[in-house]
């Protein structure tokens, strides 16, 4: 019997190893070379990593990405939780509305991005005057936050809805009989009970926003100037367009470690305050 379990795991393991682990290990090797992506190369040790820490452009990309990711994560979770509570209440057209709010999740980010790009560049200036916020180096990141939150909230809503449905009715009834108001019930009963779902959403959204790429390609392409260049975009443009494949691979590996550390830290903090029935 136990042999059968191994056989069930093996295909996934092989696929994961061949298509994920091997390329990652290859990347680690290339990050120690001066490989431009083609032709000959030589091992140069840790020089790419040393240069990374001397590059102010990489620091700028980190600052932008973290600023963006933290703001977008907070907004996504606040908005998604509010909408999920609304969609969990006894309202009319509940099923239809749940479908509507899920639609952004199935649309391709690039297409959504191009549509918003048009809205920012043409429709909004036509209604309110001024020019596109995407053309303003100080405000362009706000445009990206708007699109990212709009798109990401859909998935977070689904997870919160699933969480809200695990709350037993009798607990809420008991709280009501004890005289708890709506806000009190939310803070003391609902939120503690959906805390595991909150943890999942916070970790997933922060991780996804730290890897932001498509939104930026569709909206600003990292501009104006380099104001909205995220770490992933920098890895792509520097590595493939700029011809510094090995250098940006080193950047990618450092960033991978950063994301893992951030996620573990987040899980530790958030799981500590989860309640259970």
């Amino acid at each position, binding site marked *: 019997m136990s042999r059968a379990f191994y056989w069930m795991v093996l295909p996934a393991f092989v696929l994961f190893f061949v298509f994920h682990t091997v390329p990652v290990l290859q990347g680690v090797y290339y990050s120690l070379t001066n490989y431009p992506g*083609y032709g000959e190369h030589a091992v140069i040790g840790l020089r*790419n990593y040393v240069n990374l820490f001397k590059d102010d452009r990489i620091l700028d990309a980190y600052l932008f990405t973290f600023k963006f990711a933290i703001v977008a994560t907070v907004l996504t979770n606040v908005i998604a939780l509010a909408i999920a509570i609304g969609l969990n209440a006894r309202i009319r057209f509940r099923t239809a509305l749940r479908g509507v709010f899920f639609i952004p999740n199935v649309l391709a980010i690039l297409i959504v991005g191009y549509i918003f790009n048009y809205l920012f560049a043409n429709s909004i200036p036509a209604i309110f005057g001024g020019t596109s916020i*995407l*053309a303003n*180096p100080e405000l362009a990141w706000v445009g990206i936050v708007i699109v990212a939150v709009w798109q990401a909230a859909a998935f977070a809503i689904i997870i919160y809805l699933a969480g809200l449905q695990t709350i037993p009715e009798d607990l809420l009834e008991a709280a009501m009989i004890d005289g708890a108001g709506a806000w009190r019930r939310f803070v003391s009963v609902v939120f503690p009970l959906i805390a595991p779902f909150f943890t999942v959403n916070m970790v997933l959204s922060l991780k996804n926003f730290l890897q932001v790429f498509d939104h930026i390609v569709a909206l600003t392409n990292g*501009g104006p100037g*380099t104001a909205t260049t995220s770490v992933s975009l920098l890895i792509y443009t520097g590595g493939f367009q700029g011809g*510094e494949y090995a250098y940006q691979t080193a950047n990618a590996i450092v960033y991978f470690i950063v994301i893992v550390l951030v996620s573990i830290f987040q899980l530790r903090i958030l799981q500590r305050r989860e309640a259970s029935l």
Partner: protein
Amino acid sequence: MRRPYLPLALVACLLAPACGQGSDRGVTLDFFQFKPEATAAFDTIIKSFEAEHPGIRVVQNHVPNAEAAIRTRLVKGDVPDVMTLNGASVFGELASAGVFRDFSKERVKDVVSPSIQRILNDLGTRAPGEVNGLPFASNAGGVIYNKDLFARHGVRPPSTWQELVAAAEKFKAAGVTPFYLTLKDAWTALPAFNALAASIPPQDFFAQRRAGKVTFAQAYQDVMAKLGQLFQYGQADRFSRGYDEGNRAFAEGKSAMYLQGSFAIPAIREIKPAFEIGTFALPAAEPPKLVSGVDVAVTMAREPAHPKEAMAFVEYLMRPEVMRAYAKEQVAVPPLKEARSEDPALQELMPYFEKGSLIGYPDHHIPLTIQLAPLLQQYLIDGDQQGFLREIDSEWDKAMERRS
């Protein structure tokens, strides 16, 4: 244990273009074509080539953002048989890395004008004396203008910087936008930058810069000041408009001039402008020189899978009549021994080709990792000239340090 390999083999089969195809159908060439505007033109060329060579099939691959795409293919060790690439710094880098074939001993290179071949070779070759690509079409960087608006406001195509500024002032005073600017696409600042950077700094600037004897801050003050001056004569929403919108707006007569190279003319003509298009060289210094680059370079893999067939296709492409027909359709200059375009829009630029007062694109000497275009976009938004020059000098030094 063998079972996991079956799906793998199937996937590999789906990815490989030739899998399961019998050899009786002849040879299939993988042709990487970088220029989205020219897809149809190359389809026509391929069709007549295939009619002449029944045993060879050519598959045209064209992708957006070709320079990143060709690199991703090379990372996978997958070099196309025959390629066209823009004669820019990526071409030079790939040629220096030894990706392309050496044409120096092939007869096919003899049709090309030597001065234009030199512009391409200057970008980089694997070893001195090698020829790693053949110029197929040349472009000209200049200023495109609306002949109707010029005639109506009594303005003549300027031949000095003062005349250019005076023309822009005159249009502005008459309520006509002098230049339609499209800075949402950062690269659209490059044609004007190139024209200025080609004429104002000393001709050996990049050699001196590589040797560390001069900085951008020393040699580029005037270039940046003039660029900033030109870009003040644009429309109000210049930072939220892109290249395609610019082509349309210029074709609809919304500006008197357009700071783009000759490669934009086919796209403008597609919108059927109701006026005649003219071009002049941006008069940055005296005597004015024309920035000209190799718009399309043809080359093939150093070791292609089908060397004979690939060479046959390259030879077909480099026939003078094929090059002329392509140049006519794409409003390019065929880089033949007597480079000449019959296109009326380019006539004012022909004297530069005849006299050979051509100069390559300066930005091809600037490593792409510096990201010149976004930096220019930033400068044109905030006007911080010293900040721009400091940044480009520091990026240059960092890039050189990483390369060494």
